[in-house]
């Protein structure tokens, strides 16, 4: 279960990105909404949703929405989740958002993240407004009926409470050390 609840403040972090930069959550204090997404390379659920995340970032970048992806998996047991492989994945898939490495897993533990992917959406004040999965169909983007993250982003941008503030994250478990 996540350590932060709807209405709680975001937990700051400082993590390296695949582009060689260090990223602070506070770098995005000027955004209307920030989605912190725990994900990884190897998990088929994460991979099934990554094109949709790229599309969400593209669709909402102009409205002040920022996605941040974080990989916290133990790469010693899951080599596909190494920092080098993360760089390759980001390049291959054309990630248009930072892809950060939480090597010591402190950020995932602080958030209480359990799955990949798992979304924490914060509003302009850094308050958690949505937590859970991306949408209701990992298999087929054309068959999505509940676009939870998109709907929550729209709600946050309009200053409303998301109709669905929490869903169960669907995906692989985070691979702890």
């Amino acid at each position, binding site marked *: 279960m996540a350590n932060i609840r709807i209405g709680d403040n975001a937990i700051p972090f400082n993590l390296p990105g695949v582009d060689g930069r260090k990223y602070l959550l506070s770098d995005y204090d000027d955004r209307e909404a920030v989605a912190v997404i725990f994900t990884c390379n190897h998990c088929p659920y994460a991979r099934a949703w990554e094109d949709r995340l790229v599309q969400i970032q593209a669709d909402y970048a102009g409205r002040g929405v920022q996605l941040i992806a974080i990989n916290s998996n133990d790469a010693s047991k899951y080599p596909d989740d190494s920092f080098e492989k993360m760089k390759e994945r980001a390049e291959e898939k054309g990630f248009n958002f930072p892809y950060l490495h939480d090597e010591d897993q402190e950020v995932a533990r602080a958030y209480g993240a359990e799955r990949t992917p798992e979304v924490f959406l914060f509003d302009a004040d850094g308050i958690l407004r949505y937590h859970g999965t991306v949408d209701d169909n990992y*298999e087929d983007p054309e068959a999505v009926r509940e676009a939870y993250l998109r709907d929550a982003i729209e709600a946050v941008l309009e200053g409303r409470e998301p109709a669905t503030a929490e869903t169960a994250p669907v*995906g692989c478990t985070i691979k702890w050390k």
Partner: protein
Amino acid sequence: MKVDFLYYEDCPSHGRALERLRRVISEEGVEAEVEVTEVKTEEQAAELRFVGSPTIRVDGEDIVPPPDGAPYALTCRAYTLEDGRVSPLPSEESIRRALRR
């Protein structure tokens, strides 16, 4: 025909995958005994040559043979669908092809 269905509890798709397997078996009208095995430890994964959940074998042969050297692990398995998308579930078509071999 003997069908083995191996899964790892932490991967949420196994119930759906088993349902899909049983439906395709029924649609194909084949006589098949499905043996379901939960893989719980890394040691068991190695022993059963389990490369991820779910793994389905028809008469001992993986319906989508994994690449050589794929590590045995308690993890979710990625299947590449006919249209190139990645899914945690094998497609109905890949199950059907394996049953018709």
